[in-house]
């Protein structure tokens, strides 16, 4: 298997960053006939410093906000030439939930045959941990600072990007977590089979930005789902959300928070409020 990886090591991603693992496993499933469009961000900057590259598949970076539009153009050209192949966009949460939202919405609405993967580390990590629309309530970032006047940090709830894309009636939408590998693999395989616009929302630990132990990336991600904070679900053509993993016994959100210093300022009251929000979500999505 190892010789077949289409994403080479030796790049400059941080120790403990989960994004390279996410990318290489997706590419392993997608195969060689894959065209990658990468938005500006950690992944692009740290893997392609000229004249070196980690990418063994055709790869292009144009800008921060427009990968979905670039992919639309590639797909149109392939259609014209009668070519088959996978087109995959990789973009961070800033490049997707914020600055790239319009291009993504357009791409999905027009029905392009593209898989868009948002690797979500919940802030602008490449520029140094600034809040994005995908930063969760209560998280410290360098632009949602914590202090006497604001003991909470980020005051807004996380933007539900996957729901927004599902509301476009995208062919396939799923949330994925590498810590739940079988669920992840099944969903990526499905995403590769379905035709039309597809969207995967992947949670990824950023040890640097989450102020976490770099050896605990997968453990933290597992807790994100075991606590119910990051539910795993899928949806086709805007239909009903199907929960693909329901923890038998939910762990308290506090367990997820305590491994990350970005949440260490939170009072028990605030943690309790977040716990209630999580509980409410699961109640609304009970079988």
């Amino acid at each position, binding site marked *: 298997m190892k010789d077949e990886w289409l994403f080479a090591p030796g790049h400059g991603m941080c120790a403990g960053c989960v994004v390279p693992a996410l990318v290489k496993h997706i590419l392993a499933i997608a195969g*060689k*006939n*894959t*065209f990658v*469009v990468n938005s500006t961000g950690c992944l*692009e*900057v740290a893997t*392609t*410093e*000229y*004249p070196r*590259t980690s*990418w*063994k*598949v*055709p*790869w*292009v*970076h*144009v*800008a921060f*906000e*427009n990968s*979905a*539009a*670039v*992919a*639309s*153009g*590639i*797909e*149109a*050209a*392939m*259609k*014209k*030439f009668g070519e088959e*192949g996978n087109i995959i966009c990789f973009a961070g949460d800033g490049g997707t939930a914020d600055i790239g939202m*319009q*291009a993504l*919405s*357009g791409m999905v*609405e*027009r029905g392009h045959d593209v898989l868009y993967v948002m690797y979500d580390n919940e802030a602008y990590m490449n520029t140094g941990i600034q809040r994005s629309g995908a930063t969760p309530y209560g998280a410290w970032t360098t632009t949602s600072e914590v202090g006497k006047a604001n003991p909470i940090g980020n005051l807004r709830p996380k933007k539900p990007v996957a729901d927004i894309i599902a509301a476009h009636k995208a062919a396939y939408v799923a949330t994925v977590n590498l810590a739940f590998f079988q669920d992840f693999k099944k969903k990526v395989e499905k995403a590769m089979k379905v035709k039309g616009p597809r969207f995967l929302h992947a949670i990824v630990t950023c040890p640097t930005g989450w102020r976490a132990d770099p050896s605990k990336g997968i453990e933290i991600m597992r807790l994100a789902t075991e606590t119910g904070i990051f539910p795993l679900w899928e949806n086709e053509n805007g239909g009903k959300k199907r929960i693909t993993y329901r923890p038998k016994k939910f762990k308290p959100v506090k367990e997820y928070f305590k491994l990350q210093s970005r949440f260490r300022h939170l009072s028990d009251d605030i943690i309790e409020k977040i716990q209630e929000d999580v509980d409410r979500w699961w109640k609304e999505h009970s079988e």
Partner: protein
Amino acid sequence: MLRGNESVAYAFKLARIDVFPMFPITPSTLVPERISKFIADGELDAEFIPLESEHSAISAAIGASLKGARVGTATASQGLALMHEILFIASGMRLPIVMGIGNRALSAPINIWCDHQDTMAERDAGWLQFYAESNQEGLDLILMAFKISEDKRVLLPSMVGLDAFVLTHTMEPVDVPEQEEIDEFIGKKKPEYLTLDANNPATFGAFGSPSHYMEFKYAQYLAMKNASVVIDEVFSEFTSKFGRKYSKINEEMMDDADIVFITLGSCTGTAREFIKMKRKEGKKIGLLKITVFRPFPKEEIRKALKGKKVVAVIDRNISFGFGGAVYGEVAAAMNGMDESPKIVDFIVGLGGRDITFNTFEEVLSIAEKAMNEEVDEINWIDVDKEAVEKEEII
């Protein structure tokens, strides 16, 4: 008879573009409308992408061009300004995209009429720039732009400007070449650059550190220099095939001229008639039309203006804090030349204000005055200066 926008659309059809990404904007919207109809009627086999913004339209153009497609698109004004970020990436990635522009003023205030502010603001974006005087030139220049841009010595994108409404919406007789003639002239696109290819995977748009970035920029600088040579070759091949003559600058009535008017675009016709009229009165005026603004034809302009007394630059744009953009470039082209003419700038026709004989009367009277005495460097014509000066604290 074709409107300017139809000239652009017919040129794209004749060039057999593969992909047409678009976003509608006045005054260029008729281009995508016509392309849509060509495709619907089965006359053009191309993929039409109706994007959600101009920013995405040019981004899709990059994606398609990188996949090896021949790509055309059209925009104007705010649309071109919205593309700004990506224009530099198209040229930096050396993609031969061709874009028709309906030259239109920039907001604020919002205005849909003609001036050259939109393309002048993008003159440093690394695109070749052509300005059409007529709808015929619009069609011919788009066709030639593909051949020039796709030349492996160039590999840079091109924009062709047609003045808003004056050309984009006005019917003019246009000779549309036969498809076979254009197939022979431009040929099928064989990308002379690396493309996105699963059998030969490559990384495009990589991260360029300070140790490599400048070499990429120098390569673009050389490509622009090459473009200057290739433009001459393609213009002369076009003339021999189709009879219509093109050159980077067009000189008329210049031999004995003391005063030279420099124009771009559709107001050239008005200037030509005005000069002919004045010549009957014995005034020695010449006309220099700039068709190619990027690469800027420095040498040609130096040669043409040598020994002239006064050059009146007709600028349909304003670089605030300086003057007209064309003026700046013409003045720079004269750098170090013995007996450089006096160069005077005229800001005219912004936001679609008509450029008439009266405009040129005023230009001429200032230019004549400049023969013997000092005049203002920058002269705004046809503008109610008192009304503005009353309001602004000076």
